[in-house]
């Protein structure tokens, strides 16, 4: 295991070392000490490695992640796992705004709460938040799943495309064109898989969630609106 103390090594040096790793690297396990709220820690990795970060981080941690498993033993600032492509990012504390924003793939797990705009413009990422999410979460969500074990703030799924939203607690309000949809066995099976991937195998009943998604009236061409074009 490589141990990197960010009070000794510069962040730029550390990230550059991660960027140099190839898919067959033997340096598969990294531990990061003293992140001290710095921005863009472990952003832009493209290798199947594990990075454990001990402490709170600033903005854009694990951004653009590909293949890597990144475990954050602390809170994340804005835009954690922003534009993730694949791999797993696990935040053991809380995440600030825009967690998983524009993510194209992979899994983001937040053990605590995620604040406003979680999963904004998500494009295929799966996000499991064990606490609650703030307002405007999954805004313009295009694809992927957002699973919230707690509550969701105002305007959930505003202007949503085809992202799927599952919330176990209270939803403050739904955004434009976001509606509740029935949850059937197919959805429950998928939800069970996501919960298991987030380490909640068998402990949370997929039947206790409600499903939300697009009414498809806002973005979809509708013959009644033809005069507007």
């Amino acid at each position, binding site marked *: 295991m490589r141990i990197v103390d960010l009070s000794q090594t510069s962040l730029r040096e550390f990230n550059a070392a991660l960027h140099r790793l190839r898919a067959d690297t033997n340096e598969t396990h990294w531990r990061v000490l003293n992140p*001290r*709220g*710095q921005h863009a820690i472990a952003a832009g990795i493209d290798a199947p490695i594990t990075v454990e970060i001990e*402490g*709170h*981080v*600033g*903005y854009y941690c694990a951004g653009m992640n590909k293949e890597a498993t990144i475990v954050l033993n602390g*809170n994340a*600032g*804005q835009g954690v796992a922003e534009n993730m492509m694949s791999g797993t990012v696990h935040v053991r*504390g*809380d995440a*600030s*705004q825009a967690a998983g924003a524009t993510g194209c793939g992979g899994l983001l797990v937040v053990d605590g709460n995620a*604040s*406003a705009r979680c999963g904004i413009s998500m494009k295929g990422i799966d996000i499991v938040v064990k606490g609650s999410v*703030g*307002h*405007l979460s999954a805004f313009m969500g295009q694809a992927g799943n957002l699973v919230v074990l707690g509550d969701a703030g105002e305007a959930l799924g505003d202007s949503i495309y085809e992202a799927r939203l599952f919330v176990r607690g209270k939803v403050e309000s739904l955004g434009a064109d976001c509606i509740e949809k029935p949850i059937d066995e197919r959805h429950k099976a998928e939800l069970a898989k996501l919960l298991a991937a987030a380490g909640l195998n068998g402990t949370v009943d997929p039947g206790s969630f409600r499903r939300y998604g697009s009414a498809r009236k806002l973005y979809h061409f509708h013959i009644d609106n033809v005069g507007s074009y």
Partner: protein
Amino acid sequence: MCGVVALFLKDSTLNSRLGTLFAPMLTAMCDRGPDSAGFAVYSAAAPNAVKITVRGPQDCEFADIVHRLEVSGAQPTHVVRDTHLVLTVPVAQAEPVLKQIAAMPELIVVSTGRSMEIYKEVGRPDRVAKRFGLDAMAGTHAIGHTRMATESAVTTDGAHPFSTGTDQCLVHNGSLSNHNALRRELIREGLSFQTENDTEVAAGYMSWRMQQGDSLEQTLNSSLGALDGFYTFVVGTESGFGVLRDPIACKPAVMAETDRWVAFGTEYRALVDLPGIDAARVWEPVPAKAYLWERH
């Protein structure tokens, strides 16, 4: 951008180290606001006395000014810190001293209060903190700001904190969109403003509400309706401080608390050197909710 920091000490044994703990917080926010910086420091109030912080030009002959005040009968004790002079005068003499200062065109009154002193200047925040000797200051709480100007010019007048009431100050990250209309309303209510700055209007509004008898909590709650725009505010009073974010949380904020202190930072980076931070409760304040810490 802009950076906001605040530190409120619960454990009075830390009071002598307020500046030592607070200066690195302000310095950490340099790159969020490299234009100018300012801070309010609250320390023990002398009985029946008022502190008047005035600002003069670079190399102002403060000794002459103090001498002129003494000649006219006032007995201020004073401290000079770079471009700022803090006069401590008996309550009864505050009014005449302020009148005399108003007649000295080279001076600007930055703040008045029993316990508050405000220092602000144009320049990199770390250098501004050094010029005033922030790290050696003692007190109970402090509020600071690093500025990246958007709504008005880079001048010392435009630097935060803004004070429009005794022992009251406000720092702001964001920009307001209804400040011109609100400024006109407040002028009709009898308030006066020194700048075209949006934040000064927010400070004026809050001081006006508190003059009308509202508590700090009521004031912050009514600000949600009165002020339109982006904001994370930190408001200081003699007894403590409050935090308010706009309802859509445009501007970042993080808070931390231990048994010994409560701290606010625009980013967590500002808090990393506080004693016991690793075990502190760290959280993001919820939008449109007033947070308060006061000493009763």
